[in-house]
Structures are given as C-alpha cells and as structure tokens.
C-alpha cells in the first residue's frame, strides 16, 4: 500500500500493454540492451540478453498460461464503489473512472475458467497497471468468488499476484479483504483442491500478507520484489542501505519463503506438474 508511489517513481511512464507502443525498440531496464519490441513480446517480456523479467500485461499472462481458446472470463461484472468518498489531490472516483477507461476493465484483476495443460483451473491474474494492482473490495471479491467457483467446479486455483498492497482509498474495507480472501481460499483446502500462488514483480503489503502467501505451493518469478513493507519504508526505519537482492525472489527462496523461483518460460509446465502431483493423492 505504501509502495505505489515508489513503483511509480521507478517506472514512471512505460506501459507494456499500450496498444500503440511509442517505439519499435525498447531498452531493457536491467542491462540497457536495445530490444526489438516484437522479440520482447514473443519472449514473454523477458529480456533476451540478460533474462530480466519485465512486468507482463494481463492478457499476455492469460495467453501464456491458459490452453489456447480455453479461457472463459468470470470477472468484470462487479464494479468498485467509492464507499468513503475518498479525496486526496484528486477524487478516488475520478481516478478510478480514468483508469477503468484506459484498462477497459472495472478493477485490477481478471479471473476465469481455463484449462492448463488440459487440467481444469480457475485462473486469477492481478493487473499492476491498474492503480498499482491495489486490493480494494472488488479485487477481494473476485479472488473470493474465483476460489468459491473453483470449489463448485472442482478446479485448482492459480493466482498470479502483482500488487502494491491494500487500496488505501477504500480504507478499512480494503484491509478486511485480507480476511475475506483468506476465508474463501480456506474452502479449497477443505475440499483438497490445490491452490498455487505465483508471486510476480511486485507483490507487496496486504496482498503478500494474505492470499498470495497462502498457496499450497508458492512460486515466484525471477527478480520479483516480494515483501510486506517496501524497501523505502524499511530504509526509513533502519537508516541504512539494504543488502543487495533484499526482498527479491531469489533471496526469499534462500530464506525458505517460496517453494521455487521459476523462469517465465517454464512457469506453465511447472504449474501443470505441481497441480497434477497435488491432485494425484487419495485426497483429490
């Protein structure tokens, strides 16, 4: 939640999912190599030179994970409301309307049914480009509904997280989404349906501290920032530089917090294997 601004500063204007990209060439933010945009897209937004994983648009993510033509959207029906009448330098309602128009979706998540290597899954993908992927009532509701429908239809659940945390413009109601998503996810566990969480860059705050880290298996993308409190907040607390790689996926793997760090090109296969293995027991 406190991180939205930090990320905005890091990458102020770039939008990978812009339908009319400004240039044919883009520069890798990690190694500064000039990349032909079409190559970058074909390479799942991974730099061909250094392997840096860029943030990926939602549509591309779904294309990458769902078997061709199998994705049927569930989300998009419920819409956010400005329950608090929140105004900062700009009213939340106006900010929301502008982002909705640009993103062509009501909020920061897309969910639906899909087949993943032939296995039935419920797939939910968060959209960091939509108000920092922040979780308000709609994101919480879509995660909860995806979990509940997965239970009804006996699907595994895959959530691809990307979020600055809880959406502060929805106040304590957004905080409560952490509990709401958790109790919904809990139903999957009781029915022994797998829930695999994929942590992508960045996953922070109230999303990390709720459904995103409750996966039966937790996979992370290379280099992804994954944390509760953001680096800037911690720096302000301790008044010294943070160790290199702190809060990155590889660091968390060493600390025992994620099951594995999986390159994007291998993610679908890994998900399919993990889900199949979890469902191969007597419980499934």
């Amino acid at each position: 939640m406190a991180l939205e601004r930090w990320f905005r500063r890091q990458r102020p204007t770039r939008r990978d999912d812009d339908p009319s990209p400004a240039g044919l060439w883009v520069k890798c933010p990690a190694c500064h190599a000039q990349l032909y945009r079409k190559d970058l897209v074909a390479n799942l937004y991974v730099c061909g030179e250094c392997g840096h994983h860029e943030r990926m648009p939602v549509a591309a993510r779904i294309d990458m994970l769902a078997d061709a033509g199998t994705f049927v959207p569930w989300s998009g029906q419920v819409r956010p409301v400005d329950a608090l009448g929140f105004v900062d330098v700009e009213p939340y309602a106006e900010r929301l309307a502008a982002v909705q128009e640009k993103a062509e979706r009501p909020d920061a998540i897309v969910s639906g049914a899909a087949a993943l290597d032939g296995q039935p899954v419920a797939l939910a993908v968060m959209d960091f480009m939509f108000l920092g992927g922040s979780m308000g009532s709609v994101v919480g509701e879509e995660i909860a509904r995806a979990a509940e429908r997965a239970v009804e239809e006996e699907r595994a659940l895959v959530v691809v997280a990307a979020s600055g945390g809880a959406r502060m413009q929805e106040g304590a109601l957004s905080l409560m989404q952490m509990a709401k998503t958790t109790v919904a996810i809990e139903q999957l566990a009781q029915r022994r349906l797998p829930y695999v969480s994929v942590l992508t860059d960045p996953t922070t705050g109230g999303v990390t501290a709720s459904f995103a880290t409750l996966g039966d298996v937790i996979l992370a993308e290379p280099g992804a920032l994954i944390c509760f409190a953001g680096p800037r907040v911690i720096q302000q607390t301790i008044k010294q530089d943070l160790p290199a790689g702190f809060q990155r996926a590889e660091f968390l793997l060493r600390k025992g917090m994620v099951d594995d760090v999986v390159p994007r090109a291998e993610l679908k296969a890994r998900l399919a294997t993990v889900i199949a293995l979890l469902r191969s027991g007597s419980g499934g």
Partner: protein
Amino acid sequence: MPLPFEKPIEDLEARVREMRTYAEEQQVDLGEEIALLEQRLERLKRETFEHLTRWQRVQVARAPGRPTALDHVAALVEDFVELHGDRTLGDDPALVGGLGRVDGHGVVVLAQQKGRDTKENIQRNFGMAHPSGYRKAMRLMELADRFGLAVVALIDTPGAYPGVAAEEQGQAWVIAESIRRMSRLRVPAVAVVIGEGGSGGALAIGVANRVLILEHAVYSVISPESCAAIRWRDAAEAPRAAEALKLTAGDLLEQGVVDAIVSEPVGGAHKDPAGAVAATADAVRAALADLRALPPDELVRSRAARFRQMGRVLEPSA
C-alpha cells in the same frame, strides 16, 4: 502533556484545583463557585470530545496515559499467566500472550502491548510485533482450540514492524497464516481495538466472532501519516488523510468492520483509565457470554461469513 485541543480543559481543571486550595487555605466556602466551574468543565469536556475531528481522535487513540493492553488484562482477566515464546525464533514482548479466566471460564489472551513510558516502549518496540509475535499468537490459538479456551485479542499497534529481520523471517507470511489460523478457531474469539488498529499487523489477531472498538480508538489500512506521504506527498497532511480514511469507531461501525463501540469516560480513556478498562471488561464479558452458547461449527461458519461479506461492490444491474 495535554493534547493540543485539551488545553482549555486543562486550564479549567487547574482553576478548579486552585479554587479548592484557596478555599481550604483561607477557610472560605467557595462550594457554589466550584460546583459551577465543575459543571462548566464537564460541559466543555463533553462538547470537546463529541466534536473531535478524526485526526484528534487519532491523537486520543495514541495518547500517553491511555490504558495499555496489559492494563485491560488486569481488569478483565483473573489468574493471568503469561506464556512466552514462539518455540522457533524467540519471544516478542510487543505481543503478549497467556492464559487466564474471564467470569470463571478459561481464556487465551493475545495482547499487543505498547509501553507506558519510553523505557517500556523501547522494550515493547512500540507495540510493533515481529514474526515471532505472530508465531506465538498462532501457537496460543492452537492451545485455545485444543483446550476449548475462548480467545480474547486486544489490538493496539501502529502496525507489524517494518524491519530487515522481520522481512527475512516472513512478516507477510506469518500475518497471512495468523489470519487463517484465527479464522479456523473452533472456540469463541473476541477482539477489541483498544487504541490503534494498525493495518495487517492488527488484523492478524482481529479475525474474531465479535470485533469491538473503544470510542476513541481507530482502525485503519494505513497510518494517516503514511497515507498523507503517499497521496499528498507530504506527511504534514495527516489530518486530511485521517479525514479521508474514515478510521474512527463510528466510521468503522457504519462500514460494518466492527460490531459495537465501547463508550469511554468523558474526556477519553487516558483521563479515567479505571473507568475505561472497567467498561471494556464489561463489554468483553457480555460478548463472550453470547458466544459461549454457540457450537464450534457455528462459530467457524459465522466468523467466516462475517469476514466474507466485508466490502462494498456494485453488482451488475439485472
């Protein structure tokens, strides 16, 4: 030190005291005058505290002298025995746990403890728990389930601690796990926001069947200062952020985040700690008595339902 808006109250209190001393020393009867002044004082207190801005309430919620979690425990819990440690990393003094009795029934207590003075505040890390604190909480929730003990959670924290070790030890992971563990409790759980309910670090022990809040306590997704720093790019805008966040007891009741408000003595809990902890203890006893009648399955079901319906969304028109 009085809060800024308490200055007129303090001045009037000083005048009453002076008049009393004067009357005593000079052996004169100022009873009528003093009574009149005291009436004025009561009225001033009442009016001031009825019309507090949201930011002023944040200040009351954090006021020095406000009863801490352990002050509430002393008033509410008989035979309190503190239990230390998470069996993995250590013992976190910011989150106190233990056993005791309420109305003769055994309970597990989880209490976020701020310091009563600077020294204790440093020892308690200002009530900001590390992963160890949440692990201890989960260990005690396990005990609660095993022995059929109700859980009483006292929430008072600026938030879970944002530090290097806390991150390395999985602060986000333990908060998520604690939310999940508490949602599974097969015993009654009552949570009370007694001061500051700071974000996920508060919610980690707030997944209760009944969530109460003291009249001048606050519960928020982010502190007004941090919210101001992000949204207005200026922490000095905290008063406006507090207004926008709608974080007071009344706001939260309206949003359905809390179930009931515990009235504080006029002038705030810090002016009459004994009165405040007694009122809180009564409210917790009543909530526990209600919940004791419910079977375990129903406790789990209704608690999950309580949190499942949180939030406001616009459904598509049919």
